[in-house]
């Protein structure tokens, strides 16, 4: 119920349109009832052969309702669809607004790609919330009340019979449909999701399956999932057949009841004989208002589930709370980023991921942070980007504490190249302009050239305007990273954070990319997170992290001669790299 109210809240800004569409929808049904009612009235009175004059009103009524119904329906559809699209836009903007402060900290744990994909599907499901779920019952209530009252003018029992029949059809069968949906629908969704996951696994592992001759086992497994899905779907079809059959039966039952109460009235003279056929026709026509309600009830269930999933995501508190009176970082001549005694524990974890970290980054300085995966290297980058709020210690940007600044003004100082940069389904140009919308042509070409992409760009069919495919899938791994490097260069940020920028590249390519990066950002402050020890002699300082603590620091040669953990890592890597023997080195 709370979910429904929250969803209805989205309709508030255009409630006038909502009311109009409900009224139009009810009026359309009334016009249909009016058409059949006046037709019955015309025929029944004509049977008494009273001459043409008394029939004129009915004839006009028949014509009026006959024509107006189509117009009303047309208007109703336009208005209700307009409401739908407004609702959809509203939901999108709302969801984005809620997600923005959550990203990326709160979206990391889940398999965020799936969650977002599902969120989009959920929002699209809710698109129908108004037209197919909310509007039909509202208009049905109007029709039920109106017709119950109108027919009740003849006799209260007749009115009650009709209203009761409509209520049983619209309300009772909707409950039944909702219940069936709850019983079977959830299982259906689960079975389909299971089938989908199974198929994804099979298709991704198809080489192994065929190579290990597992076709028969796979086939048996899938067929049993298919059988389960089919069984549920057959039950669902049975359920919806029963509900719709019951609706037809209820229509007839109501008709018989109405006649049962009305016939004695005719015999007693309380009701004119010609009014009986009209009553019968009105009863039959009224059911148009409730026919689609069971279906709406089933949709409601899916809608509520979608809404709950969306609310679950959007209701999370953001990881970082912006200060109410943010300070700007002072513009000083010697920009500096200082970390002192920084300690951070992920929510729900027993031990800190980073413990007492101190370092300071100046333009022109190169720092590498190395260590095994899980040592806390990437967390450091995330704290610097202010995706998370740290617990103890401080990060100072030009002497001002991070916690006192707006995240926007912090990030202006930082450029990033990550392991998996996201590329938008857009042109090369648009992907670069994300960083600085005001960059001119010359700057774009310079960034591309310095990132080593000139040759690549000249081979593109439309140059900068070439569409790079969904998520940039038309680019190779190396090209993606280089495009991200071009972005970072374009940003003009004084500090560059490199978060394993060569991950996913083969070893023959990674060193070339690192050389490009290091020469490109010679004048900026570089913090490089890596677990591959290449180009280490280029670093001013190497910080070795283990379990969130700095265990060694110094330059490459000092650390090697010290013979500690770093030296061990270096030798291990050398053994792997050059295990074929040094005599083959060129």
């Amino acid at each position: 119920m709370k979910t429904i109210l929250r969803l209805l809240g989205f309709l508030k800004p255009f409630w006038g349109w909502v009311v109009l569409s409900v009224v139009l929808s009810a009026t359309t049904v009334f016009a249909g009832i009016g058409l059949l009612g006046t037709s019955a009235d015309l025929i029944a009175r004509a049977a008494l052969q009273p001459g043409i004059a008394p029939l004129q009103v009915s004839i006009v009524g028949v014509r009026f309702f006959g024509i107006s119904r189509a117009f009303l329906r047309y208007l109703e559809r336009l208005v209700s669809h307009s409401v739908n699209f407004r609702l959809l836009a509203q939901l999108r903007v709302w969801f984005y607004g809620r997600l923005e402060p959550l990203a990326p900290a709160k979206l990391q744990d889940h398999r965020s790609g799936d969650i977002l994909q599902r969120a989009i599907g959920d929002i699209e499901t809710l698109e129908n919330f108004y037209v197919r779920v909310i509007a039909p019952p509202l208009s049905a209530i109007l029709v039920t009340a109106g017709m119950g009252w109108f027919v009740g003018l003849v006799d209260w029992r007749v009115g009650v019979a009709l209203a009761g029949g409509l209520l049983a059809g619209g309300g009772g069968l909707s409950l039944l449909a909702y219940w069936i949906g709850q019983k079977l629908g959830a299982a259906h969704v689960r079975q389909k999701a299971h089938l989908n996951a199974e198929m994804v696994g099979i298709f991704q592992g198809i080489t192994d399956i065929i190579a290990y001759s597992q076709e028969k086992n796979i086939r048996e497994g899938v067929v049993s999932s298919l059988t389960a899905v089919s069984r549920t779907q057959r039950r669902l079809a049975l359920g919806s057949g029963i509900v719709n059959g019951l609706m037809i039966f209820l229509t007839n039952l109501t008709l018989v009841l109405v006649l049962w109460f009305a016939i004695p009235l005719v015999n007693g003279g309380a009701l004119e004989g010609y009014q009986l056929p009209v009553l019968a026709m009105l009863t039959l026509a009224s059911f148009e208002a409730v026919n689609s309600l069971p279906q709406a009830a089933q949709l409601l269930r899916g809608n509520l589930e979608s809404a709950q999933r969306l609310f679950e995501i959007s209701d999370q508190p953001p990881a970082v709370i912006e200060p109410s009176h943010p300070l700007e970082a002072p513009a000083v001549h010697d920009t500096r980023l200082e970390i002192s005694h920084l300690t951070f524990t992920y929510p729900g974890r027993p031990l800190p991921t980073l413990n007492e970290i101190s370092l300071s980054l100046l333009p022109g300085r190169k720092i590498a942070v190395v260590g095994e995966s899980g040592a806390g290297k990437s967390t450091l980058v995330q704290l610097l980007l202010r995706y998370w709020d740290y617990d103890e210690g401080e990060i100072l940007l030009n002497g001002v504490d991070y916690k006192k600044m707006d995240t926007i003004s912090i990030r202006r100082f930082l450029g990033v190249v990550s392991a998996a940069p996201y590329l938008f389904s857009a042109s090369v140009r648009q992907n670069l302009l994300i960083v600085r919308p005001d960059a001119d042509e010359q700057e774009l070409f310079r960034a591309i050239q310095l990132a080593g992409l000139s040759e690549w760009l000249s081979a593109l069919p439309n140059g900068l305007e070439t569409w790079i495919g969904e998520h940039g899938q038309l680019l190779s791994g190396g090209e993606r990273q280089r495009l991200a490097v071009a972005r970072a260069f374009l940003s003009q940020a004084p500090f560059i954070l490199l978060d394993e920028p060569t991950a996913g590249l083969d070893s023959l390519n990674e060193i070339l990319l690192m050389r490009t990066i290091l020469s490109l950002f010679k004048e900026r402050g570089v913090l490089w997170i890596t677990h591959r020890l290449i180009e280490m002699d280029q670093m001013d300082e190497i910080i070795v992290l283990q379990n969130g603590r700095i265990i060694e620091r110094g330059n490459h040669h000092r650390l090697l001669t010290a013979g500690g953990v770093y030296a061990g890592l270096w030798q291990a890597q050398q053994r792997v790299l050059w295990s074929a023997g040094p005599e083959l080195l060129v």
Partner: protein
Amino acid sequence: MKLDKRLLGLLGAERWLMLLIGGVSLAAAILIVLQARLLSRILTAVFLQGQDLNAAALWLISLLLVGALRAGAAGGVEVISGWLAVKVKESLRRTLLNRLLDGGPAYIRQENSGEVSNTFTNGVEALDAYYSQYLPQLVIAAITPLTVLLAVFPLDWLSGLIFLLTAPLIPIFMVLIGKGSESITRRQWQALSRMSAFFLDTLQGLKELKQWNRSRGHAERISRVSEDYRRKTMGVLRVTFLSAFVLEMVATISTAVVAVQIGLRLLYGLMQFEQAFVVLLLAPEFYQPLRLLGQRFHAGMSGVSAANRIFALLDSLPTRADSAGRKDLTFKSGDLIRFENVCFQYHHRETAALKGINFEIRSGEMLALVGNSGSGKTTIAHLLMGFIQPQQGRIWINQHSLEEIDLLKWRQQIAWVGQRPYIMNGTLRDNLLLAAPQAGESELQMAIRQAKLEEVIARLPEGLGALLGEEGAKFSSGEIQRLALARAFLKNAPIIILDEPTAHLDAALERILEESIRSLCAGRTVLMIAHRLPTVMRADRILVLRDGQVVEEGNHSQLIQENGYYASLVRGYGGRA
């Protein structure tokens, strides 16, 4: 139209259900007529003949009974239609599954596996509306109006004539307007999916937007795009809703015309009330199925567009000839694998993946394939495992062409280790035994030791019984690699085909894998798709591929001396380290 035929063809053995739907619909239509006549009889009796409830009671009960039967018939049609759709979907999925397994890895490539599974689940599901709604409604729309017409004509031929003349207007208008709006609707649909894609892209790239301080202004852009979409769509809908308007108009005006003309004839005593009222009752029943057909036509059409994707997938898949009964060959020491002028081109690709490849692998030798992605390394591996056949040239195993050999038995002699090993739902033990179902406990333990999987198993409370896959424990990529290696050890096949992991692993983990891979390759014939220099350097021979051709061949020092493409790659890497 061809597509419709193919969709009908999918009914297959379930065609009789369509007949059943027709039969039950006919029964329902007859009950509709009966119901109208009964109701009219009761009303006439009370209204004009002055009978009371006692006299009408029996009629009323019969009316209820007929109503119940009609309800049963209508519900029955729906249930049968639903079941028909379920049957069709299931058998289509079975066919797809078989064909996909026949087609194998060459047809389900890594990059489109998501799309294929989406077609398999959601694509086939989208056909539901076609079979459960559109097709049955087509039958109902043919049977019910015809039955009503046959009932109306003897009662009043003039009204029957009005029905007969107006009825075709509905499908005619439907087709006319539908044709015009179809392309508009399709364009609109594209706009919608583009907008969804834009929204998804924005959400997925939120981190990037945020990183570059662009995220807050984006809400406005979403709002603008949505509002823009709403305006355009409403413009289109104003036109497309006209079709519904015309259909509604035809149905209501016809009912009105029928009502007025029989009213006038009643007035002048040219007709009886009882008959007239039956005609009026039947008028909505006559038009209703036709209008419903219009609605369900659209539902059916979305299924048809899904069918296009499904059939395109089916048509791209080969039907594989069974290789059972062909020659059974064991690969022994001293044997030779030879690729002779092998060419291969994938379905729907413009350029050939392999353009006349020649090379040999002797037993006990390790051959490394080097080259960029797309140069043909994986295709060579797939050819050797018999997933695909060369369009030109031959693959020889000694003096036998691979075409003469029983492929299932051939594959038993190959252990394949890929980059993304298949993890099935089941225990760790099941997942290991997949490679060699008959392996005994001691062989299993041996393979685990060789692949250095013990420490992973020791960490799991259930040990080998731990569940993996969708509902089970998640393994890291390094652990999955070790699992794949354990499978290969367990299979103990003379030939190893290995796609070396490219994922970045810790130096320590890389060493563990390195050692296992080395002991796996020792004494076996190895085809290695290599990504890392040390592996390449260790190979007996290196085949450097570029755009489907062998550009260099030899061992590491030979190739360095040749000072070609390979040498430049190595220098780029090794110069500094």
